[in-house]
C-alpha cells in the first residue's frame, strides 16, 4: 500500500534523536499546561510558538503537536483532583471524575482518563493516516473558488455549531478578517489600514499578536478573576495493583471508548466543534448507551473514559483539515497553521507533495507521542498533582513575561507587544459579554488566504460571482455552508414562535 512506506519514513523522522527529545519535552510541557487550571493546549501553543524558531519546521511541529496532545491528557488531572477543568476540553471529565475522587478512587479516574486518551489518540491517528492522503489528493483539484468556499464553510460551522450568540460570532469573524487585512494590499501594493500612520502597521498584524493577546493576556486575566476561591486537592495513592484493578474496571467500557474515539475524531474535523463539544457529546452518548445511566454523574468510570477519549481523538481529527486543506479544525490548529506560514511552508494539499518529511514526520510523531504521553502521565501523576498546588500568582507573571518576550520575537518590534496588551484587554472585555474569541483567531489566520482566493476568483471571472455556484465542487461546499448558516436562524424562529405562544414572564 502507498501509505505504509511513507509512514515508516515518518517513524524514522520522528525517532531521530532531536525530534524524539522535542517530542518528549512537548509531552511534559503539554501535560503541565493541560493540568494547570486556566491553561489549555491553545494557550500553551500560542505562548510557545515563538520559541520554535530554534529548530527546523518538522521539529517545531512535532514539539507543538506533542504539547497539544499532552495538554489533552493533562486536562483530566485537574478535573479529577481539583474538580476544576484544566481546560474547557476537560469539562465533561469533571462530571464523573470529581465524584470518583471524592470516593477515594481518584487513581481509578486518572488511569481511566489516561487509558481512554491513549486509545482515543491511537484510533484517531490510524483514521488520520488512512484519510489524510486521499483527502489531500482530492483537494489538489481545488482552485481559488473552492478554497474560498471552504473558508466560508469553516466560518459557517462557527455560526451553525458554535452555539454562541450569532451576531457576536459574525462580529468576531469579521474583526479577525479585518485585522488580517492590515498592512500592504497584495494586489496593488498600496498601504492599507495604517492606523494613525504608525509604521508598525506596515508589516501587518501577525496572527500571533492576536493569539497571544487573547490566549496569553486575556485568558490569564479571566483566570485571575475567576480563580479567587481556595481549591481543594484530592488525595490519590498509587500502586501497580490499583492500576491493574482500574484497567479491569475499564473492560466494561470498551465499546464506549471505541465509539467515543470515532465520534471525537469526526467532530474534531469540524472547525467550530473541536475537542470541547466532542467530549460533551461523547459523555452524552455514553450515558444514553449505558445500561445504568443513573450512575453517571455519581462516579461512573465510563463517564471519565468517554470524554477523555473523545477530546484526544478530536485533537487529532482537527489536524486533518489543517494538513490536507489548509483549514484549521480548532483554535490550536489555527495557531499551528499560522506557525507553518512563519516557518515558510504553504499549508494545504501540496504539503504532501512538496514536504512529505514534514507531514509524515508529524503523523509518525503522533503515534509515538501518544505512547510516551500515556507512560509519562501514569508514571508522574503524583508530580503533576503537586503542580496543581502551585499558586496562580507565581505562574501568571511568568506567563505575562513569556507573552511579551514571545510577542516581540517574530517581528522584533515593540509595536506588536503593545498591540498584544491592547488586544488582550479588549478581547477579555468582549469575552465577558459573551463574544466568542476563537472565531477571531481562526479568521486572522485564514484572512489573507480568504482574500487572495476571493480576489483571484473575481479577477479570473471578471467579477462574475456565479462561478461559485457553477463549479460543482465549490457549489457543494457553499451549499453546506449556507445550510449551517441557516440552521441557527431556523432554530431562533422556532424558539421565538414558541415563546410568542406562551405568555412572557
Amino acid at each position, binding site marked *: 500500500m502507498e501509505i505504509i512506506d511513507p509512514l515508516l519514513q515518518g517513524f524514522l523522522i520522528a525517532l531521530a534523536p532531536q525530534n524524539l527529545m522535542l517530542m518528549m519535552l512537548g509531552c511534559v510541557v503539554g501535560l503541565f499546561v493541560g493540568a494547570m487550571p486556566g491553561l489549555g493546549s491553545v494557550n500553551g501553543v500560542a505562548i510557545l510558538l515563538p520559541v520554535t524558531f530554534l529548530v527546523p519546521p518538522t521539529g517545531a511541529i512535532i514539539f507543538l503537536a506533542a504539547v497539544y496532545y499532552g495538554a489533552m491528557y493533562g486536562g483530566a488531572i485537574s478535573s479529577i483532583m481539583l474538580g476544576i477543568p484544566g481546560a474547557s476540553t476537560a469539562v465533561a471529565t469533571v462530571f464523573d471524575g470529581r465524584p470518583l475522587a471524592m470516593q477515594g478512587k481518584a487513581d481509578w479516574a486518572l488511569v481511566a482518563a489516561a487509558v481512554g486518551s491513549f486509545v482515543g489518540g491511537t484510533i484517531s491517528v490510524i483514521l488520520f493516516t488512512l484519510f489524510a492522503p486521499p483527502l489531500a489528493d482530492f483537494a489538489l483539484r481545488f482552485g481559488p473558488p473552492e478554497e474560498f468556499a471552504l473558508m466560508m464553510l469553516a466560518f459557517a460551522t462557527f455560526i451553525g455549531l458554535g452555539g454562541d450568540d450569532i451576531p457576536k460570532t459574525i462580529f468576531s469573524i*469579521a474583526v479577525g478578517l479585518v485585522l488580517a487585512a492590515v498592512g500592504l494590499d497584495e494586489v496593488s501594493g498600496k498601504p492599507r489600514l495604517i492606523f494613525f500612520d504608525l509604521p508598525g502597521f506596515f508589516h501587518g498584524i501577525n496572527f500571533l499578536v492576536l493569539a497571544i493577546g487573547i490566549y496569553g493576556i486575556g485568558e490569564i486575566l479571566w483566570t485571575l478573576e475567576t480563580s479567587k476561591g481556595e481549591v481543594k486537592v484530592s488525595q490519590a495513592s498509587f500502586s501497580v495493583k490499583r492500576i491493574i484493578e482500574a484497567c479491569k474496571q475499564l473492560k466494561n467500557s470498551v465499546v464506549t471508548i471505541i465509539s467515543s474515539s470515532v465520534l471525537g475524531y469526526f467532530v474534531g474535523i469540524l472547525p467550530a466543534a473541536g475537542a470541547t463539544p466532542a467530549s460533551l457529546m461523547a459523555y452524552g452518548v455514553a450515558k444514553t448507551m449505558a445500561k445504568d445511566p443513573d450512575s453517571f454523574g455519581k462516579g461512573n468510570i465510563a463517564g471519565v473514559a468517554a470524554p477523555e477519549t473523545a477530546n484526544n481523538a478530536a485533537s487529532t481529527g482537527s489536524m486533518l483539515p489543517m494538513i490536507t486543506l489548509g483549514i484549521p479544525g480548532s483554535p490550536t490548529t489555527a495557531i499551528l497553521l499560522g506557525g507553518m506560514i512563519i516557518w515558510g511552508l504553504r499549508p494545504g494539499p501540496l504539503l504532501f507533495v512538496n514536504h512529505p518529511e514534514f507531514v509524515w514526520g508529524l503523523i509518525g510523531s503522533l503515534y509515538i507521542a501518544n505512547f510516551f504521553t500515556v507512560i509519562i502521565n501514569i508514571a508522574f501523576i503524583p508530580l503533576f498533582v503537586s503542580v496543581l498546588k502551585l499558586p496562580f500568582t507565581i505562574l501568571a507573571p511568568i506567563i505575562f513575561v513569556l507573552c511579551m518576550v514571545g510577542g516581540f520575537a517574530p517581528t522584533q518590534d515593540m509595536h506588536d507587544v503593545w498591540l498584544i496588551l491592547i488586544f488582550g484587554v479588549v478581547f477579555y472585555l468582549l469575552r465577558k459579554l459573551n463574544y466568542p474569541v476563537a472565531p477571531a483567531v481562526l479568521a486572522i489566520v485564514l484572512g489573507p488566504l480568504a482574500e487572495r482566493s476571493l*480576489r483571484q476568483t473575481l479577477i479570473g471571472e471578471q467579477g462574475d460571482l456565479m462561478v461559485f455556484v457553477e463549479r460543482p465542487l465549490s457549489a457543494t461546499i457553499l451549499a453546506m455552508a449556507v445550510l449551517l448558516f441557516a440552521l441557527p436562524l431556523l432554530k431562533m424562529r422556532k424558539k421565538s414562535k414558541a415563546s410568542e405562544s406562551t405568555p412572557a414572564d
Partner: protein
Amino acid sequence: MRTRTAEVTMAVIMGLLSLYLMWKSAELPIGWTEGRGPGGGAWPFWLAGVMLICCLVTIVRWFGRKTPESRSEAEYMDTDARRINFVTVGSLLAFLVLTHFIGMYFAMMLFLFFYVRFVGRHSWLLTFVLALGVPIFLFFFFEALLKIILPKGYSEPLFYPLYRIIF
C-alpha cells in the same frame, strides 16, 4: 457598571470602531477596478460593514432584551475583579513603558519583583529567585540560542561584557 449597560456600551463602541474602519478602508478604492478586480479597500470595507451590522443587531436585541447579557442586572466587573485587573494591567503597562527606557530585561525584573512579592505575597526568597532567574534564563535563550536581540534601552552598555561571552 451593570452587565446590561456594558452590553450596549460595548456594542456602540464597536459600532463606532466599525464606522472608523469603513472610513479608513475607503482610503483605497472600494469599487471595481477595470482589469484588476475589486479595489484594495473593498475587502476590509465590506467586512467592517458586516461588523457594523452585527453591532446594530446587538443594539436592537438589547432593546428587546433578547440576549442574557441585556437582561443581566449583575455587576459587569465586581470590586475584586476590578482590583486585580487594575493592578495586573497597570503593572503590564509599566512593564512596557519601562522597556522603552531601561530595556526588557530590567523591566521584567521589576515587573516580576512587584507581582510575585506584592500581588502574590510570596516569600522574599521566591521573589528574588524568579525576578533574577527568569530574565537570566530568557537572556541566554533568546540572545545566545535564538540570536534574537531584545530591546535594552539605556541599559545596553551593561550587556557589553555578556555579548563578549555569547558572540
